[in-house]
């Protein structure tokens, strides 16, 4: 007969199990590199785990850039290859991966990982190694308050100002159309929360009353209680700081509660294109606002080639994260070409601080701390299509809708 296991032993084993859950890593073989060989760019991405969706999209963007760059003669006349490691959406693993890329693989250049959560620790490795670190998705203000010299964010704005255009538009609405009350649920995430806080600050200053504000943990699956509280608060505008799943779950919970605010803004989630439409349904996507760094129809540097190559390599239209990845690589390439090499990576950073770069996201320029100095596009789902509605001069439609409703 087996020896019975005591409750303490069982509990200790369960605790050990929970520690194990936090440690996974996969690594690819290091490529060959040298003065005459290809230039090797290293990156870690969440190819598995919670953020794998964005990670895989970003990887596609990197790969499309490598293809187009090599077709165009490479970088400094040499072919480019990229080494991507999987960090499994784990903050410890991403640090290990970048240390390996720098110390063991000896890559020539780095590209960032996906999400502020992972880029915060990863960028510290690059800073210590004195290597340029351009991240495609690191919008948290916490990225840029550490005095780092090598980090740059290759989108138009940080999270706290990402929805500024939307907030200013709401604040400027005519009194009879402007919501009087607003709710601000947000994921506990270094990116999502500042987006919501930025909107809240602007709208409170404009006199729009905050009737609900709370932060929910990433493990939240059921939003019935949160939506119930927001419904009871009488909010006419809901601004949700979301990643992907929580954005979809939130809309579903609103439908179940029979709650339909006049205006609905969600960060990130609606930018996932077809997957968002499948998750919430086209009728529920109708009129959802979001901030976007990219639009497939944008007439920006290299966008037509990017869209065509993406379709050739992966099929369909490129998602936003793929475009962001591509733009990050464009930024690195621009700096290397301008400086004429990559041995002095401080020179690459100095060049970026004092110049702007044309990318598929538009013209990017940076502040001294590496944060971008620009403005996001405001998108809205209309009839199953992701349109740009603000700023007006780059809008793809002049119609702006209420959530699941008519035009304002």
């Amino acid at each position, binding site marked *: *007969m*087996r020896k*019975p*296991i005591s*409750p*303490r*032993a*069982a*509990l200790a*084993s*369960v605790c*050990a*199990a*929970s520690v*194990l*859950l936090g440690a*996974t890593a996969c690594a690819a073989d290091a490529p060959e590199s040298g003065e005459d060989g290809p230039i090797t760019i290293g990156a870690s991405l969440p*190819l*598995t*785990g*919670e953020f*794998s*969706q964005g*990670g*895989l999209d970003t990887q596609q963007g990197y790969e499309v850039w490598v293809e187009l760059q090599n077709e165009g003669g490479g970088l400094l006349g040499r072919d480019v290859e990229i080494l991507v490691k999987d960090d*499994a*959406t784990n903050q410890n693993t991403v640090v290990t991966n970048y240390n390996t890329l720098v110390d063991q693989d000896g890559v020539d250049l780095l590209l960032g990982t996906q999400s502020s959560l992972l880029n915060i620790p990863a960028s510290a490795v690059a800073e210590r190694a004195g290597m340029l670190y351009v991240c495609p998705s690191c919008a948290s203000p916490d990225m840029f308050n550490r005095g780092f010299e090598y980090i740059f964010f290759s989108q138009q704005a940080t999270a706290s100002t990402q929805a500024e255009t939307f907030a200013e538009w709401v604040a400027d609405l005519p009194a009879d159309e402007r919501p009087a009350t607003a709710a601000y*649920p947000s994921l*506990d995430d270094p990116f999502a929360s500042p987006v919501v806080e930025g909107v809240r600050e602007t709208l409170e200053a404009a006199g729009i009353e905050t009737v609900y504000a*709370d*932060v*929910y*943990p*990433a*493990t*939240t*699956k*059921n939003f*019935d*209680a*949160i939506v*119930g*509280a927001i419904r*009871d608060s009488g909010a006419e505008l809901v601004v949700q700081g979301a990643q*992907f*799943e929580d954005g*979809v*779950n939130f809309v*579903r*919970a609103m*439908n*179940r*509660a*029979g709650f339909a605010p006049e205006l609905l803004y969600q960060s990130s989630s609606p930018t*996932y294109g077809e*997957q968002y439409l*499948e*998750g919430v*349904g086209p009728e*529920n996507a109708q009129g959802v606002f979001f901030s976007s760094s990219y639009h497939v129809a944008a007439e920006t540097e290299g966008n037509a080639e990017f869209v065509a190559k993406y379709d050739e390599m992966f099929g369909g239209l490129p998602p936003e994260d793929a475009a962001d990845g591509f733009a990050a690589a464009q930024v690195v390439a621009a700096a290397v070409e301008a400086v004429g090499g990559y041995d002095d990576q401080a020179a690459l950073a100095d060049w970026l601080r004092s110049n702007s770069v044309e990318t598929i996201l538009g013209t990017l320029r940076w502040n001294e701390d590496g944060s971008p100095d620009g403005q996001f596009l405001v998108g809205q789902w209309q009839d199953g299509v992701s349109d740009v509605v603000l700023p007006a001069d780059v809008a793809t439609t002049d119609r702006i809708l209420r959530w699941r409703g008519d035009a304002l």
Partner: protein
Amino acid sequence: MNVIQALVSGLLVGAVYALMASGLTLVFGVMRVVNLAHGAFAILAAFLTWTLWSGLGLDPLASIPILSVVMFGVGWLAYVLIVRHVRNRHMSMTILATFGIALLLEGVMGFAWGNQSAAVRTAYTDSSVTIGPLYLPTVTLIAAAIAVVVLVSLKVLLDHTWAGRAIRASSVNESGALLVGVSVKAIAATTFGIGIATLGAGGAIIAATYPFIPGSHYQWIARLLAIAVLGGLGSLPGAVIGALIIGVGEQLATLWLGASWVVAVPFLVIFIVLLVRPQGILGQRLREDAVA
């Protein structure tokens, strides 16, 4: 009225948690195996549900019988190929082995379905039943009903069938069970298969309720382990009670303290319960149940 709404919602969600945790606690109760792959098996079932729904148009609820059979086979295979080789070793070995299975399944799912989010939308995904001022999400209502059916079936199977008695006999005294003609090896494989088969229903419910990716299993296994520990590892009734406490606790914490407390409060409850009863709420009753 908000409190009543939160209580009802919590009970419905808790029933789903109970269904999900039942297989985990059953496997531990009989085999002393903490199956860290339980969440990954659930996500596998969810992906299979999605495939049947998107490919054949089969409603998630209608796919439950098929999934239960398939998941039984998957569980049986996992036991025969991997778990049985470490089952009688130190518990840390089974934890490592099942964690390995979870990673393997995550990789296989990523290869087969991609690492992008999948979601099933049915006519009842966004609807609810209104009773006076209360609203009951239809999908959660159906899920809770299925959970009750599966849990009662499991209880009947364990208490009133020869297979159930053999399972319980094996869990209490392997040597004794062998002496009276029970094939302990076959029973162990069957038990593991049954534990995973419960996820046929659990996976279908996940698919119909939430979007999911291969990596979603981490969130589920963390929650399910907490439920199993609270109820008492190995106790089926304990898992049900633990699940209802967590479900209601999450809803009430959100209502009274805010969403940011939704993780802290249930774990505070677990902490207090374990201080008083280290074996969990019904942790000691499993063996009593098993020998009854």
